[in-house]
């Protein structure tokens, strides 16, 4: 357990370093961890189940968006949708705090404040996983190739549901970089053009054989 705890902590530190040390303004970073879904495998009749490789939530770091006065605001959501998001955040606060109706750190501000589109996208992402080859992370991993989508047209026109969903929630750039045991995904509400600096950092931080 101590070793597992250390792995989780360093994973969080690597995601944070990736974003905080970058020249560009990234909104979030997620590590999709390669794992195996034994439940989804088919029983061969002899009690032996095959297993299906999938990319599941490993960890994530949400930085948020920079406030820019001239920035185009996404289409406002309905009051009902905003209330739904707030209710979910309040319930999650309660869940994390032990179900006693309290909130993280005892405060209740977090449940009353508006939940932004990118916060909601990040939260929803925690519930997702991708079979190898499917979705943005799955395609990046199975082809061992970085996928870099910048501009809302590129996201909206993608064949991947996740990219289209990201565009709806105000993202302008989504990147998936494959590593030895998963995929690093970054998203930004700004247009960020492809650069090797980010890919070099991911390669260095997330590939153990490179000393990462």
């Amino acid at each position, binding site marked *: 357990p101590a070793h597992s705890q250390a792995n989780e902590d360093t994973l969080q530190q690597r995601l944070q370093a990736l974003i905080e040390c970058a020249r560009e303004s990234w909104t979030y970073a997620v590590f999709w961890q390669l794992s195996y879904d034994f439940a989804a495998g088919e029983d061969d009749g002899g009690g032996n189940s095959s297993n299906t490789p999938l990319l599941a939530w490993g960890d994530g770091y949400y930085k948020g968006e920079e406030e820019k006065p001239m920035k185009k605001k996404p289409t406002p959501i309905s009051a009902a949708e905003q209330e739904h998001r707030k209710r979910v955040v309040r319930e999650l606060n309660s*869940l994390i705090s032990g179900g006693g109706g309290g909130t993280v750190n005892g405060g209740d501000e977090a449940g009353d404040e508006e939940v932004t589109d990118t916060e909601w996208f990040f939260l929803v992402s925690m519930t997702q996983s991708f079979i190898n080859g499917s979705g943005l992370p799955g395609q990046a991993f199975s082809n061992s190739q970085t996928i870099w989508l910048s501009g809302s047209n590129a996201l909206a026109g993608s064949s991947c549901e996740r990219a289209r969903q990201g565009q709806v929630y105000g993202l302008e750039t989504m990147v998936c970089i494959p590593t030895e045991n998963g995929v690093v995904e970054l998203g930004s509400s700004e247009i960020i053009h492809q650069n090797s600096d980010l890919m070099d950092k991911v390669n260095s931080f997330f590939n153990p054989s490179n000393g990462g």
Partner: protein
Amino acid sequence: EGDLPIARRKSLQRFLEKRKERIVSTSPYSP
């Protein structure tokens, strides 16, 4: 609650704590 995988639970906890910090730091009532 018991079905929430530990990685997601920890990420969720971090996200909610940082969100609260951001809200408090940008609040007009913040000291």
